[in-house]
C-alpha cells in the first residue's frame, strides 16, 4: 500500500463530489475538507490509538468523516435538529466553551499573585507530627499498667515498654487525618497539645492507653507561590471561566421571560 492509492482515492472522491456539486440545485453539496480538519482528524486518531494511522486507516477515517458530514446535512434538511435535547445541550455546552475561551490564556503575573493571596488557604500545607508511643492494650488493665509504667519511668527512670501495637511504635510526619485514621480522634486531641521531646501519658484511644513522645511538629505553612504555581494557574483559569459564564448568563437572562403554568401540579 502506498500513497498512490490515497491519491487515486482522493481524486475519485473529488470527481464524485464534483458530480454531486454539479447536480445540486439549491444547497451546495460540496464537502470541503480543509488541511486543518485533516490534521485534527489524524491527530485525534493518533492520540486515541497511540500511533499514526496506516494508509488504509487514513482512507477509513476520511470515509467516515465524509459519511458523517453527508448524513448530518441530510438530517439538517429534514429539520431533525429541532427539539432534540442532546443537540440543545451540546449547543449550550458549545457557547459556554466559547465564553470560557474569551478568558486570556496567559493571565499576568500580577493577576496570579492577587488570586494566590486571596485563596491562600487552599494551598496551606497542614502541620505534621512525628512521634513514638508505648501502647497498653485495653485487654489487660491498660489504665493501671500505663500509669504504673509511666510512674516508674518518672520516679526511677525505668525503661518504658508496653504492648505491641498493630501499626508499630514510630510514626513519621503524620498529618491530622492520618493520626485520626490510625488512632481515632481522641488520640489526636491529646497529641496536639503535647510538649516536644517529653514522654507524656497515659493518653486514651479506642485501643487502650498510650504513653507518647512527641518528637517534632512541622508547623503548617503557606508555600511560596513558585512552589504551587502550576496549581494556582489552573485554579485561576477555572475560576475565571466559571465567573465569565455566570456573568454572561446574568447579563442575558434579564432579556428573557420565563413562563410556567401556575396551575401545573408538580
Amino acid at each position: 500500500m502506498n500513497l498512490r492509492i490515497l491519491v487515486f482515492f482522493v481524486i475519485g472522491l473529488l470527481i464524485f463530489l464534483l458530480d454531486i456539486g454539479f447536480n445540486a440545485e439549491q444547497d451546495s453539496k460540496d464537502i470541503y475538507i480543509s488541511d486543518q480538519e485533516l490534521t485534527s482528524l489524524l491527530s485525534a486518531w493518533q492520540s486515541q490509538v497511540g500511533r499514526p494511522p496506516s494508509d488504509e486507516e487514513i482512507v477509513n477515517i476520511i470515509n467516515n468523516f465524509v459519511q458523517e458530514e453527508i448524513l448530518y446535512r441530510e438530517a439538517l434538511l429534514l429539520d431533525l435538529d429541532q427539539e432534540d435535547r442532546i443537540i440543545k445541550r451540546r449547543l449550550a455546552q458549545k457557547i459556554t466553551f466559547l465564553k470560557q475561551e474569551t478568558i486570556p490564556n496567559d493571565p499576568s503575573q500580577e493577576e496570579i499573585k492577587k488570586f494566590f493571596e486571596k485563596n491562600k488557604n487552599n494551598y496551606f500545607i497542614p502541620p505534621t507530627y512525628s512521634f513514638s508511643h508505648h501502647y497498653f492494650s485495653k485487654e489487660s488493665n491498660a489504665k493501671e499498667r500505663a500509669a504504673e509504667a509511666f510512674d516508674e519511668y518518672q520516679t526511677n527512670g525505668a525503661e518504658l515498654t508496653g504492648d505491641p501495637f498493630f501499626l508499630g511504635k514510630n510514626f513519621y510526619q503524620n498529618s491530622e487525618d492520618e493520626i485520626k485514621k490510625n488512632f481515632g480522634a481522641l488520640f489526636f486531641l491529646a497529641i496536639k497539645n503535647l510538649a516536644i521531646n517529653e514522654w507524656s501519658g497515659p493518653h486514651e484511644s479506642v485501643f487502650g492507653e498510650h504513653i507518647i513522645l512527641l518528637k517534632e511538629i512541622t508547623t503548617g505553612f503557606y508555600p511560596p507561590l513558585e512552589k504551587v504555581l502550576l496549581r494556582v494557574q489552573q485554579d485561576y483559569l477555572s475560576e475565571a471561566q466559571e465567573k465569565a459564564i455566570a456573568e454572561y448568563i446574568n447579563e442575558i437572562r434579564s432579556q428573557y421571560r420565563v413562563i410556567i403554568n401556575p396551575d401545573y401540579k408538580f
Partner: protein
Amino acid sequence: MNKSLIGLIAVSTVFLIYVTGFYTNFQSDSALEVIDFSIDKPASENSIPSNPDRIPLYGDLHVHTKYSFDAYIFGVTATPYDAYKYATGEAIKHPLGFDMKLREPLDFYAVTDHGFYMGMIENYADTSSEMSKKEWTKPMHNINRPENVNVESLGERADLFSSVLSQAIVQPYPYWHPKLWKAWFTNNIQVALKSFDYDVHKSAWADVANAAEEFNDPGNFTTFIGYEFTTSTEVEGGNLHRNVIFNSSNAPIRPWTRIDSLNPEDLWTWMDSLRDKGVDSLAMPHNSNGSNGQMFEVETFRGNPISIEYAEKRMRNEPVVEMTQVKGTSDTHPLLSPDDEWADFEIMDKRVGSRPPTYSMPQGGYVRDAYLRGLTLDWEGRGNPYKFGLIGSSDTHTGAGGFDEDNYWSKAGVLDGTDMGRGSVPLTQDRIDMLNQYADLYNQPISIQEIDGRTYADVGFDQWSASGLAVAWAEENTRDSIFQAFKRKETFATTGTRMALRFFAGFDMESIDLDSEDMVKNAYAKGVTMGADLFSQDNQTPQFLVWAQRDKLGAPLQRVQIIKGWVESASGTPKEQIYDVACSDGLLVDPVTNRCPDNGARVNISDCSISNDVGAGELKTIWTDPDFDPTIKAFYYVRVLENPTCRWSTWDSIKAGVTPRPDLHQTIQERAWSSPIWYIPESGELNIIPL
C-alpha cells in the same frame, strides 16, 4: 493410493498455510500492543515512608462506572474520576440523587469496568453517535437523561439489561468449530461485530487508564489500571468473572474480553505474553458462589483433566481470589460445612445474572472447598491450582462501594438504590402496580412475593451484602508494594470492617513474647506469614501466631478461629475442622468442643444498639494444632468474628419504621479471613495408597 497421498499432502499444506496465516495475525495481535498511559505530574518532594514490618492497607479492587454496559443501563453516570474522588473521601452522587460518602478514605482503589463492550452503551444512548443510528439501539437512546433516572424507569432498565445481554453476547461455537478457531487466532473478533465501535471502546479504556494515572499518588493513595474479564461457562452460565489489574502505567491498548475467548486459560496466556513484554498483571476471580460450582472445577474449562502445567499457569496469574463482595460471600456453604456454625453467612445461591434466577450448585463454588479440591488434585499428582490468597472488594456499579450496614445502597444504581427495590421493606401499592405492569409489558416473571401477609420485591437483592474490602500487608502505599503483597498472598479479606489481622506459623513461635513491642519483627524472622508455605522441619509440630485488632469505628471482636483442611492419607477423603483459638472477655476455649463460650453480646433489633461492655479491642494468641499429623499436607486460615450487629436489611426497616422481614437474617457478624498458610510435609518415600 498415490493420488490420495498427494491429496492428503495438498490438504495438509493448505491447512498449514491457513493456520500459520492466522498465527502470524496472532503475533501482531492488537491486545498485545502496550501503551504507556503515564501522565506528566510534578514529582512529590517528600520521601515515601516505608515500614519493614509492613502496614495493613485497605482498598477496593472491583468498581464499575458508567463505562460498564450494565452500570450505564442501571442509570449510573459516574465516571472513573468520580469513583477515585469517592475513594479519597469526597462525596459523590448516587443515580437517585443522594450523596454517597466513605466513613474514612481508602488506601487503594481500582476502577474495573467490564472489558466486554466497555463504553459502548453510553455510545448507543448518545443520539449523536454513529451507533445510535442503528434501529436496535433505540430503546437505549438518552436513557440516562436526568428526568429518566428514577425508580419508574426500573422496568425499562431491567428489560434492557436482559435484552442487551442476549443481543450483544457472541454465541460461542463448540471447540471444534473453525469459527471458534478463527476467533482465537485473529484475536480481535469484536471488531467484526455490528454492535461494536472499536474507537469508542479504545477511548473508554484510555479514559479509565488516564483516571487511574491522574489519581495515583505514591505514599498516599494507590490506583491500578484494570478491568473485569466477564466470562462464563458456555452451557450452564456459570460465572467465571475475574478482575485484571496491571502493575504500572504500561497496559495493553485494549482489554482482552469474553469476545476474544470465554476460556480463562486464554486470558492467562495473554497475561503471560504481556509479562514477557514487561507488563505484569494479575487476575482475581470473584463470585465463585454464582458459578454453579465451575469456578473451582476439578477439570479445565474444556473438560480436560487438570495438569501440573495448568495449576502452575493458574497460580502464576491468579494468586488471590475475591471471596466476599456485594453479591454474597464465598467462604463456605452450610451444605459443604455442616459442622461450621458460621457457614450460613451472606449466602447468595443464584447463578450470576441468570434469568430467571437459577440455583447455583455449591460444590466447587466456595473457597474452602476449593482449597480441599486443590489438596485432592495435588494428592493425585496433578498440582494444586487452588492455592490462592483471599481478598474482598465491593463490585459496586455506582463508582462507590457501600461497606457499612447502616449506610447501604447495594450496587445496581436505580434498580436497588431504594429499600423497596432491595426487598427489605414492603412495597407500596404504586410500586406493586409498577412491578406488575413491568412484568406484563416486558413478559418478565412476576417479581413480587408475599411474606407474612406483606408484599416485597422478589428480585434477589435481599441476598446481597454491604461487603467487602481487600487488605494488603505492604511496606508502603505504592503500586509496586501493594501489588507485591498480592503476589505473595500476604492479604486478608473483610466484610467491609477495617479490622486488622496478623497470622504467622513456625517451629519456634513459642519463644516469641506476645507482649513484646518487637513481636512482629520476631514473627517475621522466625516464621512464615499468611499466603506462604511452611515446610516441615524434622516432623516438628508448628505453632501459629494470630493477632487481630478491631475496627475502631465498628463492633468489638468476639473470637478468633483457625480453619484447617486436609486430605486423609488412608482414604483420600477431604476433611475440615474449625478451632476457636482466642475468645473475648477473658473466656477460655472449651478443649472438647473447640468453641469459646457465649460472651453475651446482643443486638437490640428495635434500634440496632449493641452491648457496650463485652467484646475485645484486640485478641492474640499462639496456638498449636492438637490433631497435627506431620506427614499430611494441610492448610490453615484465620477467621475473626466481631460481635453481632444489625444487617443492612434491618437498618432499612428501622429507618422506614416497619418491622424487619422475618425470613432474612436480622443480624450478622462482620468478619475477616486471612490467606491460608499451607503446611508441606517432607517428601519422603512415596506413599502407596490402596484404592
